[in-house]
């Protein structure tokens, strides 16, 4: 159902990223998302970066609608639909390695909180790293990779993940980030014989599993996903390859 929530807190995470906090009583699981809207923007999907009674979204300003969200201040009202989607399937006794790339850290933060799992945060540069302090508080061990080497491991998150899997024993990788990263991470999991769960993105309209615009192969990202397990990912021909535009046309990733 849709709800309205008053914004109670705003945190600047990086030069282009803010966390917007509000009280929203709906029950949510790690990995779920909401459709967020205020007048003057398109309604867009946002992962819940906090899932208790106080919830939050962490928004990277990349276009008109995310820019509109960045203009909001404490006391403003936000319209939310959801929570939607499957979320991560977390089990006791499984040793997880969490990998968050870029804004993808927002989606996996509740997993780190719930499991205390070892965590890799990947970003382009030092100033693109978000939510490190929060993740650091809950993760058993935490490592950073930057593409330009300005902080932590010099290289991408997948290279760092391979290194950490050499040093430690994990059962399952949980990840959210750019699809190219996820695709290579998935390949690495195949090589290493690791299980995995990954959160994907496709263009969303209804968010509720009806309109069929967010399909990846025969799966609805908004309802069957956004988190898919290794078996589901292995059957996908479009993962890492192509997506649907707003008209439903198949377009290759550039």
């Amino acid at each position, binding site marked *: 159902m849709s709800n309205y929530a008053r914004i109670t807190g705003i945190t600047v995470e990086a030069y282009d990223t803010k966390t917007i906090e509000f009280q929203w009583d709906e029950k949510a699981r790690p990995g779920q998302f909401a459709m967020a809207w205020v007048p003057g923007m*398109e309604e867009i999907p946002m992962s819940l970066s906090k899932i208790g009674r106080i919830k939050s979204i962490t928004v990277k300003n990349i276009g008109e609608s995310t820019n509109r969200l960045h203009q909001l201040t404490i006391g403003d009202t936000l319209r939310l*639909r959801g929570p939607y989607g499957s979320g991560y399937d977390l089990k006791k006794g499984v040793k997880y390695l969490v990998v968050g790339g870029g804004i993808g850290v927002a989606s996996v933060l509740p997993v780190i909180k719930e499991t205390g799992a070892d965590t890799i945060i990947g970003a382009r540069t030092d100033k693109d790293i978000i939510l490190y302090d929060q993740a650091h508080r809950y993760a058993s061990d935490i490592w950073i990779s930057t593409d330009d080497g300005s902080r932590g491991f010099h290289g991408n998150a997948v290279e760092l993940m391979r290194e950490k899997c050499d040093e430690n024993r994990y059962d399952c990788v949980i990840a959210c980030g750019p699809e190219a990263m996820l695709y290579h991470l998935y390949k690495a999991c195949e090589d290493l014989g690791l299980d995995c769960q990954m959160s994907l993105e496709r263009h969303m309209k209804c968010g*509720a599993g009806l*309109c*069929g615009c967010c399909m990846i192969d025969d799966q609805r990202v908004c309802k069957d996903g956004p988190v898919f397990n290794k078996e589901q990912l292995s059957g996908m021909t479009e993962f890492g390859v192509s997506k*649907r535009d707003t*008209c439903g046309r198949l377009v290759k990733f550039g």
Partner: protein
Amino acid sequence: MTLETSVGRIELERPGMVASGIMGETGPSMARMIASGAGAVVTKSIGAEPKAGYPNPCFTEIKSGYVNAMGLPNPGIELFADEMRIAVAAGPVIGSVYGADADEFAMLAGRMEDYGAAAVELNLSCPHAKGYGMELGTDPEGVKQIVVAVKGAVDIPVWAKLTPNTRSIADIGLAVQEAGGDAVVAINTLKAMVISPEMRKPVLSNKFGGLSGPAVRAVGVRAVYDLYTTVDIPIVGVGGVTDAHDALQYIMAGAAAFQVGSAVAKGGPDVFDEINKGLERFMMDYGYKSISEMIGVANE
């Protein structure tokens, strides 16, 4: 006992179809719906050119249904060939089309026939080119012209999907029959609006939308009942079907088959399996051997 039914020449193993606009935009999603127990799948309404639809918000939940103004997003008839190839291999596909005029409807229907559609469904709820927010399907003469043009262009059965946003749906049904239409499908969504008091404005970017789900069921059942008393061609019932009991209302009002849209949101693709099981249970309990024995019995 059997769930088989037929809509004119079209034989269906199971009486429930996926309604247009529900997971009908891509080949793989349509194939999945057929595998999940739907007797057929109706495609998203396809037009001559690719269309992005209205900007978000274009959909919202209300207490007993949904209001949407998707704005007919679709990849256009040319590219839809790729999706049809995959869907048609999985089972019966009804090609839904919308056009600006009779010629465009005829062209689109012809392409759907080429792609292997079992029948074509004309979406008469799209806006009238002449404006005023009127829907094409509210004018009996216009409807007749479209159906005649499409009948002249294809050999597959032609179904007309009726809008409830009209003074008399039975009159439109009669126009379809007189023009040689093979079946009527009722109902499309009811014109509706949702306002956010917090934001002091309509929620949908298009302001108006179409109401679907349980909230429209009683309106749909009544429309089918009315049509059954006025037309002789088969009727397909749609609007608010969530379980076998709902589907039986449509069948007993006069529908030879039914479609399910909104219920896919909560029930998922498995909703068809659930409905099929429920129908079998009911037929067992009440001594019916076939769907045809139940069609229109509420009119007797």
